[in-house]
């Protein structure tokens, strides 16, 4: 396989930016109120990715596990913040941040370490060229899942308050009274991940695999990595979402099994 990569220059990126601009104009015309979040997210993606390009190069030049821990910590805390940034209903105070951060630590971070030590086995295991992209992909997808799950759970609890209270009045436990909303939240959180796996190869070529192939990796190698990543992502998202929804469901009720929507805003 040749190692020839076609470089992309600033002009190419500017062309792509025009497309986003057109989407923003459409949003303005149709009053979709998407233009602001769209603009902010687009500018953030540009700045953050440029910065991370420099930082990755700097990190790759160093070989201490300390840098892995440091990078993982920054990524984890940023993910915890992002989960709660765009929720319509969210927990008051810092509960949402802590619940999602702990859930991602227990799912994505542990799974990434497991995959590095047991499956991929780079030398050394924390080799930043492997560990950081892997952790990034796991965290990014788990973040998405938890965010969707929170959204559905908290919106559901808010709009179906009378239903939950009716079930409590009938003597159901808190866990039972919220069970249907909880199931719905878990489903909503997992759909994108399951869709991506199911459609892979038939409808879409996954981003990571596409990137590797564009970068000159033989397709079969790229495919094997992609399969591994998919399964890790699904396992990570599933456990992370489960953990986050479990913690949230508990937080929605107090010790006397009362629905406490005053803990949301």
């Amino acid at each position, binding site marked *: 396989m040749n190692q020839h990569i076609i470089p992309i220059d600033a002009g190419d990126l500017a062309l792509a930016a025009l497309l986003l601009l057109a989407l923003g104009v459409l949003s303005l015309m149709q009053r979709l109120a998407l233009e602001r979040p769209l603009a902010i997210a687009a500018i953030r993606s540009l700045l953050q990715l440029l910065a991370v390009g420099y930082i990755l190069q700097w990190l790759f030049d160093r070989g201490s596990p300390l840098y892995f821990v440091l990078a993982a910590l920054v990524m984890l805390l940023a993910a915890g913040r992002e989960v709660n940034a765009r929720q319509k209903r969210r927990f008051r105070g810092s509960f949402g941040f802590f619940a999602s951060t702990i859930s991602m630590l227990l799912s994505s971070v542990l799974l990434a370490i497991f995959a590095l030590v047991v499956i991929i086995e780079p030398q050394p295991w924390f080799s930043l060229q492997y560990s950081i992209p892997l952790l990034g992909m796991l965290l990014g997808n788990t973040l998405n899942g938890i965010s969707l799950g929170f959204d559905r759970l908290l919106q559901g609890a808010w709009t179906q308050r009378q239903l939950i209270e009716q079930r*409590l009045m*009938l003597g159901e*436990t808190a866990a039972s009274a919220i069970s249907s909303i909880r199931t719905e939240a878990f489903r909503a959180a997992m759909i994108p991940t399951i869709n991506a796996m199911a459609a892979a190869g038939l409808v879409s070529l996954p981003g990571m695999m596409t990137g590797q192939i564009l970068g000159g990796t033989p397709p079969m190698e790229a495919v094997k990595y992609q399969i591994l990543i998919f399964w890790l992502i699904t396992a990570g998202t599933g456990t992370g979402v489960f953990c986050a929804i479990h913690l949230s469901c508990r937080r929605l009720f107090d010790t006397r099994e*009362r629905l406490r929507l005053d803990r949301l805003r």
Partner: protein
Amino acid sequence: MNSTAPHATLLEVQGLKVAHLQPVSFCLPARTLAILRGASGSGKSLLCRAIIDLIPSTGRVSCDRQLREALPAHRWRQQVQYLPAESQWWCDRVLDHFKQPLSGELLASLGLDQSLLAQDPLTLSSGQKQKLALLRSLENKPRVLLLDELGANLDALSRQQVLALVSHYLDRHQACALWICHDDAWLESATSRFVLENGILTQLPTPPADQPA
């Protein structure tokens, strides 16, 4: 069973404090039906929600001499059932809301047809919903019933059927009921009346003729 004193206190509320209401105290003996009146917004439903511990409140509430804090909240609410004025239904079929199959006899006593059970709750009339919600609550075999405007949108015959069922239940299970009602002329078997006004709960004097034998 009959050795139990008929007037032993069942529901006991002492100094219950919730929101804008003055501390509330009252007792309901077993096998009694009490009426609670009060203008809309006076806090009747609020009081009920506090009694079943669905909203935070302070004070002593006990059922059959057992403090509510001594039981897990869901067990307390099984014993002290509150029927809100608007019942909620969440499954696709009516019968999925019941733990056990309902007998045709029981349904007929409320003038309900068995075919209702397979229906979507959305297709029920408000009267049918009220009756089915009552049956759903009674499945828990509660000792105390807090009935929020039960019968408000029922015709005269349905009211009599509902009252007969509740009265029979109270006798059979040594239970008591607090019935929130604006127009209580048809609740002849009521033995006491309470009024909630300006945040104060007062018991109205019982007319001597109303004393049961």
